[in-house]
């Protein structure tokens, strides 16, 4: 039995995950760099000018992937936090905390680029539209999670309290989304949908998907770097950390 199955829990301990993460980080950075280069090239030079929105539409190559990531990272964060709460694995909670700043950054980027896009297209930096408002509230939820976990000194309590907040938040995200949507809507409908043909040129879609991939790789690389830092910080008292070459070199 144990020969056939991968031992999923082997890398659940910080000690064995730390070097693995270290080996994976350059790969994700490399993939992110390539995908960013290709995606930005397609976005700036290959994709045609939009007949309605002119050149200004090109901001979607940043805006849409950032919005996707901001929503997706919240779910991933809640997943890891919930796993940490249920199975009491330290690494899962560390992962959740490592993801939160990246998620907040993505939500902020999405709001910021959205404002840049809104000014020429709608003539205003901000409208109280459903999707803008729910993205703003998502940003607040990230800030709440970061504020709560950093206000608690004891790491185990911070992990668990953060996990409850993330889980409550993840149930609330759809409720908030639909309540705000009913409240008011002006944002253009989703351009990419799984159920119908995309309403945009193939090269635009391709550029956006490549950029989305780049954002994925970037987020994973940064989250792994941050989780390594958290591991070092929390496990500083252990022998294996003291014997790491980078720790010894810093002495």
């Amino acid at each position, binding site marked *: 039995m144990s020969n056939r199955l991968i031992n999923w829990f082997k890398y659940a301990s910080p000690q064995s995950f730390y070097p693995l993460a270290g080996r994976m980080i350059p790969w994700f950075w490399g993939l992110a760099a390539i995908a960013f280069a290709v995606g930005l090239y397609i976005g700036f030079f290959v994709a045609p000018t939009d007949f309605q929105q002119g050149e200004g539409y090109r901001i979607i190559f940043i805006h849409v992937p950032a919005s996707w990531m901001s929503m997706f990272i919240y779910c991933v964060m809640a997943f890891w936090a919930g796993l940490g709460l249920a199975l009491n694995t330290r690494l899962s909670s560390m992962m959740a905390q490592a993801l939160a700043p990246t998620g907040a950054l993505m939500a902020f980027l999405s709001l910021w680029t959205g404002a840049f896009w809104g000014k020429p297209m709608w003539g205003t930096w901000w409208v109280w539209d459903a999707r803008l408002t729910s993205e703003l*509230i998502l940003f*607040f*939820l990230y*800030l*709440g999670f970061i*504020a*709560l976990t950093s*206000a*608690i000194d004891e790491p*185990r*309590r911070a992990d*668990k*309290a953060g996990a*409850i*907040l993330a*889980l*409550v*938040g993840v*149930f*609330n995200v759809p*409720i*908030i989304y639909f*309540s*705000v949507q*009913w*409240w008011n809507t002006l944002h253009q409908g989703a351009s990419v949908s799984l159920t119908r043909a995309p309403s945009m040129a193939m090269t635009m879609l391709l550029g956006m998907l490549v950029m989305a991939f780049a954002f994925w790789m970037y987020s994973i690389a940064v989250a792994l770097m941050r989780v390594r830092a958290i591991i070092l910080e929390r496990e500083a008292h252990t022998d294996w950390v003291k014997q790491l070459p980078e720790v010894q070199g810093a002495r």
Partner: protein
Amino acid sequence: MNALLSVIRRDLLLALRRKGDALTVLFFFVIVTSLFPLGIGPEANLLRKIAPGILWVAALLATMLGLGRLFAPDHADGTLEQMALSPSPFGLLVMGKIIAHWLTTGMPLVALAPFLGLLFDLPADALFLLTLTLLIGTPLLSLIGAIGAALTLGLRGGGVLLSLLVLPLYVPALIFGAGAVEAQIVGLDASGHLSLLAALLALAVFFAPWAATVALRIALE
């Protein structure tokens, strides 16, 4: 059930002995709502239009102010730990505390809201609906707030942190609560908003005490 009732009775008695706490929240509610006309100007039409939103936001802030007292005094004198260790289910006792909290902060707000609505010249049917939405909405605010209060129990800067955690979660209640009254003022059917608000309350009654109990156990560890 006896345990639930005795917790409610005890918290109400404590609130009666310290009337100042509950009254402060009420006066806060009154003062905040009366600040808006001073800031915006005395135009009756404009005020009538924004009254539901103002009253709802003020109720939300007032409820949040009262949340700090929900668990903190019991945590400080060790009662909360005794409750966690007692043979009656802790979740039931937490539910009792939330109900008592609503009876001392939420219910007075509901009773006061129609009079404040008069200051904004709301018509009678809108006043009735406003009171009804607050009657459904304030227990919801107390329930969601209890999760935040439990999570921030005993932390430094707990009050500000609590508002950061809880206010985003209050958004749906605000939208449906104020939305119902606004819909009625412009002549639309408000029953959809009311049903959704009640649905949120039903969900919260089921999940919030449970989440708050888990959070309290973490805080007590």
